[in-house]
């Protein structure tokens, strides 16, 4: 018998009472929270449609809004709303259209461009906007201390590269001249058919000298001139608020030369890193436009024939690099076998799903009329034969091979599918290795990989932008592949061609050489994927996925029409 003396307690009969006092506290707290939530039933989209505010899902938080420091797509969106270059692009065809320059002439040798700057173009603080701004801006862009990763965009300009690399010291020798306040003359080193396109790239946008110098030296990184309240631009909108990781707000710029045609009053850019969340925000009416769509959601929207779904080809290629210096991968028959046993049709249809097109060449087809050679289609039998020829009949003796990819669910899915395809068609063992982004970059550039996932997004629409990746020892080559004839074609022969057609033929020849050797396995051509509320008008999908914010307007009233994108 043991009743320890401390068990004589009586459990309450009035539990309800006690818990109710406690519950009261909780309820009060809950009530407070709910009360704050009962303010409005209108969502962002509805409010935005009323007030002319566009809610834009912008991917990640921009790291800088300095056009000569920024490098990413999210930065691009914001910068292109607050700044403008000499030349713009038609939002459908991407053909050059006048922007700050109302007109321009090109010399017969295609080397000298003369731009006539609008007299009514102003900086957002009211300063006048002149040709000298461009000379100064590009001088700044070419200062090595600034650490401009896009300095090479200016290299078509005569002597720009030499100046940047310190071979010449006098900037006057660089081919940029302000003939007068409103006339800018640019001399190129070689004829560059895509030069006008470059002018719409933010790295060639003008920046406001006084503002920059007010906050630091011209070539100093990370000054506060890009903050809200400080930034002076020349675009249709001006920066009014920047809350890190929360939102960036741009307001209509009344001093913009074309202000009367700008219909939006305001754009709010949200950093939406998490695609799944972004999609939910869209569904809850918190966003007009998303940056992306989760792959698994695409089918749902497709089945619903949801008008919000916008899929379009995008100027980028998803491919695998093959490290040529890996013994068993140095045999080009092996590489070709690998390429031929990827069922790209099935992959794009079943895994990536967003209307991406299978890629059989590194250059996206249709790039300003360029059609790359396409010969290595899906041919498992031929691949098996090639592998046998290389000494691995039925995959026997083929060393275990690793696919390296950076940590990401989408990359993983593709790697898993390809792993299985190679296993099935070639009977070879493939392992997957994912590394965190920076580690992956380090491994890849150090050549410490066998097969590695890669992607390339074009900065401008020209095959050169893709093909000059694989020059001998190029910083973006990373495969160890080197072909002097290829280099000569890209660097010397193509630029010297007189006609567009001849030039494209040279590119085709070069690309054929690349594909024959297969140091890269092209997989698919990217597609831009966005969900866009039907109230957003004048948004047109294009190859560069570049919106023209000045043209967009919101109309929540008009009946929803089925939009067909292609």
């Amino acid at each position, binding site marked *: 018998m043991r009743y320890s003396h401390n068990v004589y307690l009586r459990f309450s009969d009035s539990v309800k009472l006690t818990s109710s006092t406690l519950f009261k506290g909780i309820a009060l707290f809950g009530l407070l929270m709910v009360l704050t939530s009962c303010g409005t039933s209108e969502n962002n989209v509805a409010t935005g449609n009323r007030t002319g505010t566009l809610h834009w899902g912008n991917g990640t938080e921009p790291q800088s809004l300095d056009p000569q420091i920024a490098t990413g797509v999210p930065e691009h969106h914001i910068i292109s709303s607050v700044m403008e270059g000499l030349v713009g692009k038609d939002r459908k065809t991407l053909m050059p259209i006048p922007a700050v320059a109302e007109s321009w002439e090109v010399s017969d040798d295609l080397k000298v461009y003369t731009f006539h700057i609008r007299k009514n173009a102003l900086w957002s603080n009211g300063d006048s906007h002149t040709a000298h701004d461009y000379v100064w801006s590009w001088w700044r862009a070419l200062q090595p201390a600034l650490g401009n990763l896009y300095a090479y965009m200016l290299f078509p300009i005569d002597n720009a590269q030499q100046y940047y690399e310190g071979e010449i010291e006098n900037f006057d020798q660089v081919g940029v001249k302000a003939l007068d306040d409103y006339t800018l003359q640019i001399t190129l080193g070689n004829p560059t058919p895509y030069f006008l396109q470059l002018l719409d790239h933010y790295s060639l946008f003008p920046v406001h000298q006084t503002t920059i110098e007010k906050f630091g030296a011209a070539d100093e990184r990370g000054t506060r001139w890009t903050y809200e309240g400080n930034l002076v631009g020349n675009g249709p909108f001006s920066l009014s608020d920047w809350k890190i990781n929360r939102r960036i707000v741009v307001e209509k710029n009344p001093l913009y030369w074309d202000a009367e045609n700008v219909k939006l009053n305001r754009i709010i850019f949200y950093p939406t890193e998490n695609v799944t969340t972004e999609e939910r925000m869209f569904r809850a009416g918190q966003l007009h436009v998303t940056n992306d769509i*989760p792959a698994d959601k695409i089918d*749902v929207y497709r089945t619903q024939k949801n008008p919000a779904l916008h899929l379009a080809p995008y100027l980028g290629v998803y491919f695998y690099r093959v490290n040529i210096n890996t013994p068993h991968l140095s045999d080009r028959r092996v590489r070709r076998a690998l390429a031929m046993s990827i069922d790209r049709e099935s992959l794009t*249809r079943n895994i990536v799903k967003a209307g991406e097109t299978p890629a059989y060449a590194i250059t996206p087809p249709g790039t300003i009329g360029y059609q790359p050679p396409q010969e290595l289609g899906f041919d498992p039998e031929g691949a098996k034969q090639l592998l046998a020829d290389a000494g691995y009949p039925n995959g026997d003796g083929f060393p275990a091979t690793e696919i390296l990819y950076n*940590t990401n669910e989408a990359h993983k899915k593709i*790697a898993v599918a390809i792993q*299985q395809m190679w296993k099935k068609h070639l009977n070879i063992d493939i392992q997957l290795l*994912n590394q965190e982004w920076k*580690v992956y970059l380090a491994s890849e550039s150090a050549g410490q990989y066998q097969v590695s996932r890669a992607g390339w997004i074009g900065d401008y629409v020209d095959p050169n932008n893709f093909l000059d990746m694989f020059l001998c020892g190029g910083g973006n080559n990373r495969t160890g592949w080197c072909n002097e004839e290829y280099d000569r074609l890209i660097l010397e022969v193509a630029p010297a061609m007189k006609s567009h057609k001849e030039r494209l033929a040279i590119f085709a020849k070069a690309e054929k050489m690349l594909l024959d050797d297969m140091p890269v396995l092209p997989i698919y051509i990217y597609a831009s994927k966005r969900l866009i509320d039907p109230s957003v008008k004048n948004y047109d999908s294009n190859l560069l996925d570049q919106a023209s914010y000045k043209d967009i307007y919101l109309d929540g009233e008009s009946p929803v029409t089925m939009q067909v994108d292609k």
Partner: protein
Amino acid sequence: MKQDSLSQSEIIEEDGSSLWNDAWIKLSKNYLALAGLGILILLCVVSLLTPWIAPYSYEQQNLDLGATAPSLQHWLGTDIFGRDMLTRIMYGGRVSLMVGFIATAVALVIGILWGAIAGFYGGRLDAVMMRIVDILYALPFMIFIVLLMVVFGRNILLLFLAIGAVEWLTMARIVRGQVMSLRNQEFVEAAYSLGLSQWTIIRRHIIPNTLGPVIVYTTLTIPSVMLLEAFLSFLGLGIQPPESSWGLLINYGVETMEEYPWLLIFPGVALSLTLFALNFLGDGLRDALDPRTSKD
């Protein structure tokens, strides 16, 4: 004294039998705990036999089939690669259970020893040891993992190490708290006055009496270790596709919970089942290992 080493080894053997034998007898009367144990054993057996009894290959894809809801062919449906979910859950269980048990065991051993030593000796040693725990708590875990990976390469052992390295900290704190209250108990003083060495006292008198909270914490740790494994695998430290684990399956299932709910539900059920089985077993074990609970 010359028999000392011999007699100590005998003590160990005796120690092993009694408490655990009695615990087992008591456990066998606790039906809930037995059910938990049964489920765990079943899961382990299924995991062991998976290569022979799995209905499909875990890596064989059927891209055109894609994700399909449960059907007669695929009882638990298929994933987006057209792979049989039942098979993948079975294979995933192998990884998850192994990681869960081994990594927790690593954390358990380090945590108990660390906490017991710190708590028992107290004073400056305790202060230093607990400051080390503080420091480890504060270090950026992700950088640590990435570095581990780079220095040692990819290795399943490393996974255990990494998980153990995180989970033992809390365990050490719990055990330390327990030990500090135990070390002033009279039976410890009695053991001390018998001339037992400190190590023997820690091992025979202190640690067995900390088992209650340790077991409860352990049952909570195993599921969270399984989810941590998914995170580490995602970072590239753990297992690599096409292999999978419950944690990874759940991780992916969350992404598609609206479109393909079965990709979340079934691995989730597997994990929850383990969780509850562990919980019941843990509570049962705690009671069974505490002789005092038997008569009330």
